[in-house]
């Protein structure tokens, strides 16, 4: 009923190939964008910005980066957090060496560094596959975190070994550092995440995306039909690491404000991998759904007992929280192993033919 497609005729190939062949999808996206751009920022409190809106967007972007590599090109990676770290440290060095630099430009440029490192660590993927490649990326994870600790130049020889985000201005408004207001940071994050998501949707639907999918599904067959595997795999590593690097720079500059090397250790890699898997590998929207589940839900669950007036200790809440989120993950994976994006796809298909299923 809501999703009735009757009467929506396509008269050209462009219309048939459009991103949203069904009007309702475009309408839904419009509503979500309206919420994200107007409603949330106007109504959100400082707490909502800092614990829900900004982190969910940043984690979604990081998962999107990983999804390009793992979901679209089929190259398993466990080094996401380290590549985020490269982006964050690159951005920090650029900002401190060149304080006149526009922060958004610096954040977007910092991805270039992680793309370079990503390609370097992606070279083994030409020879090794699957779990073995995962081990190779794991090496990147350990090596880079070690480097962040030992190479004092990266953190400007700070005694504590941590990087601290300075106050950065853009057109007279603070966009990062302690003086920046959450709403400004939110809009910066939303702009960059939106931009990169748009780029990714188009990339994955285009020639390059098809090359990646062919590589993922069967690399020998892809080679036989004339796809250059080296190019395909390395571009996947480059694009993925670029996005992950930008996510890392946003992570530190727009949200955390300070970072120590072990922040970029393997638990963060796993967290992002979980978001990508639970959201759905090979999907763009899934990353957002996954991030809402993994990042947003625990925060909301933590607030529940207080809001309902149930008097339980915060440590107990934390224990319960871990159990609930854990079992939800298991539940969703059993119900739909292909992730939340697939779940939504099925719901949508059912809605389209409802109330007359064949």
């Amino acid at each position, binding site marked *: 009923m809501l999703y009735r497609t009757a009467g929506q005729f396509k008269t050209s190939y462009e219309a048939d190939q459009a991103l949203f062949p069904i009007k309702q999808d475009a309408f839904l996206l419009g509503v979500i964008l309206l919420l994200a751009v107007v409603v949330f920022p106007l109504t959100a409190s*400082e*707490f909502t910005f800092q614990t829900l809106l900004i982190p969910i967007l940043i984690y979604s972007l990081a998962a999107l980066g990983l999804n390009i590599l793992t979901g679209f090109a089929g190259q398993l990676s466990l080094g996401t957090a380290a590549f985020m770290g490269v982006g964050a440290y690159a951005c920090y060095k650029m900002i401190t060496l060149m304080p006149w630099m526009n922060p958004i430009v610096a954040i977007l440029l910092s991805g270039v560094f992680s793309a370079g490192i990503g390609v370097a660590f992606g070279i083994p993927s030409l020879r090794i596959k699957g779990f073995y490649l995962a081990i190779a990326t794991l090496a990147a994870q350990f090596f880079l975190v070690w480097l962040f*600790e030992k190479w004092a130049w990266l953190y400007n020889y700070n005694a504590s070994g941590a990087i601290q985000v300075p106050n950065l201005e853009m057109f007279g408004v603070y966009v990062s550092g302690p003086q920046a207001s959450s709403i400004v940071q939110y809009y910066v994050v939303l702009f960059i995440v939106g931009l990169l998501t748009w780029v990714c949707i188009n990339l994955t639907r285009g020639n390059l995306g098809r090359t990646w999918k062919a590589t993922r599904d069967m690399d020998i067959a892809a080679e036989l039909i004339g796809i250059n595997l080296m190019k395909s795999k390395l571009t996947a590593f480059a694009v993925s690491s670029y996005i992950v690097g930008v996510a890392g720079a946003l992570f530190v500059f727009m949200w955390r404000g300070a970072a*120590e090397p072990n*922040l970029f250790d393997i638990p963060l890699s796993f967290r992002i991998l979980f978001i990508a898997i639970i959201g759905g590998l090979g999907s763009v929207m899934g990353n957002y759904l996954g991030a809402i589940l993994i990042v947003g839900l625990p925060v909301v669950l933590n607030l529940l007992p207080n809001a309902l007036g149930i008097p339980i200790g915060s440590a107990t809440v934390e224990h319960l929280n871990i159990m609930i989120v854990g079992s939800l993950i298991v539940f969703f994976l059993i119900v739909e192993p292909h992730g939340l994006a697939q779940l939504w796809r099925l719901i949508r298909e059912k809605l389209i033919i409802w109330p007359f299923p064949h």
Partner: protein
Amino acid sequence: MKHFTKLAIAAAVAGVTAGAAMAQELYTPNLAYRTGPFAATGIPLMNGQADYLNMLNARDGGIGGIMINAEECETGYSTEKGVECYEKTKGKAIVTQPWSTGITLQVLPKTNVDEIPILAPGYGFSPMMEGTTFQWAFNAPSGYWDGADMIVQYLESQGDLSGKTIAFLHLDHPYGKEPIPVFEKMAGDKGFTFEPIPVGLKEMQNQSAQWLQIRRMRPDYVVMWGWGAMNAGAITEAVKTKFPMENMIGVWWSGHDADLAIVGDKGKGYKSISWSFPNMDAPVMADIKKHVVDAGKSQSNDTEMQGVFYGRGIVISAVLAEGIAAAQAEYGTAEITAAQLRWGLENINMTEERINELGLTGMVAPFSTSCSNHTGHSGGWMLEWDGAKFVKVSDHLTPNVASYQELANTKAAEYAEANAPWPTNENCGG
């Protein structure tokens, strides 16, 4: 319509009275960690803190006639959760207690904007002692640099240090690196060799590589800046390699009874510098027993209550309570604000008499804070493990603050510059 207006008025009145009822307490949230990898050390500290404030609430009806709401917000020692807790509590909090160096690093730059005092007793960024720059941060009664200085003083009292070697076994983390500048400076002044040996976060439980290095180096002393699982790892490893325990000294966070109970008698002689001491005969312990433990409001147990960390939790809450009391006296109101509490924390005067009056006899050394001195530099005692518990083995040691005051000023200025615009307190007399 009339009915609706009535309802609306009733709701508004209820809202106002509820608001007033809410304000009848001081909200001093604690970003606790009773879960996660460091829970073993967190639980006794949090229990000590909570029990002291519960005791004040039960015995005196709070502080200055107003109840204290020391709600805990669980962080599991995770920075991410810590920031979540900070954002959640900062609306009505008059103080924030971040509890981890990572969370302190995140919260510190925001304090000038949010204007909430940070109370980080005995941890955090050492240059925080410079109150003119760090207007909102307090690490009374002692900072890490005080600890480093007192350890070297104690070692000097055991014999001349020139030509000796001190190995510095530390967590490779902002916390562990904190005292290095002061040790290096003293190594230059006093002519001993200072060898930092970092322990990575992943190697905390397995330090065989580090102890092999120590065995090869044959240092005269091992000074340890460890935390959580690292302490137990280092102590068991030291016992295994037969390092003379009496030459091993830890900072106050490396003096946890449970870590030493594992090795028992073999750990005899291990020392830890501390600004707090669990004096079981102190009147406050009896009061806590009477008002909190016997009332069934404590989460602690007998063994834990005899430990150093539980006693330290009590002292931390007592410092906070003193700050609140000082602010209440100055502003003549029980319901103080965050800014007023800042004044209070700057004007703590813990004299020997006051300590006795509070019933904390022998649990903390006298100290006083001022607007430019946010640490107080109480000094402390060298504690030694006698096989079953920690005992005092030194007189009251006082840090020689003058020797690193300049360093603190430089570091504070560097911090302010890196975080510009960073307002400093210009009307700070002294």
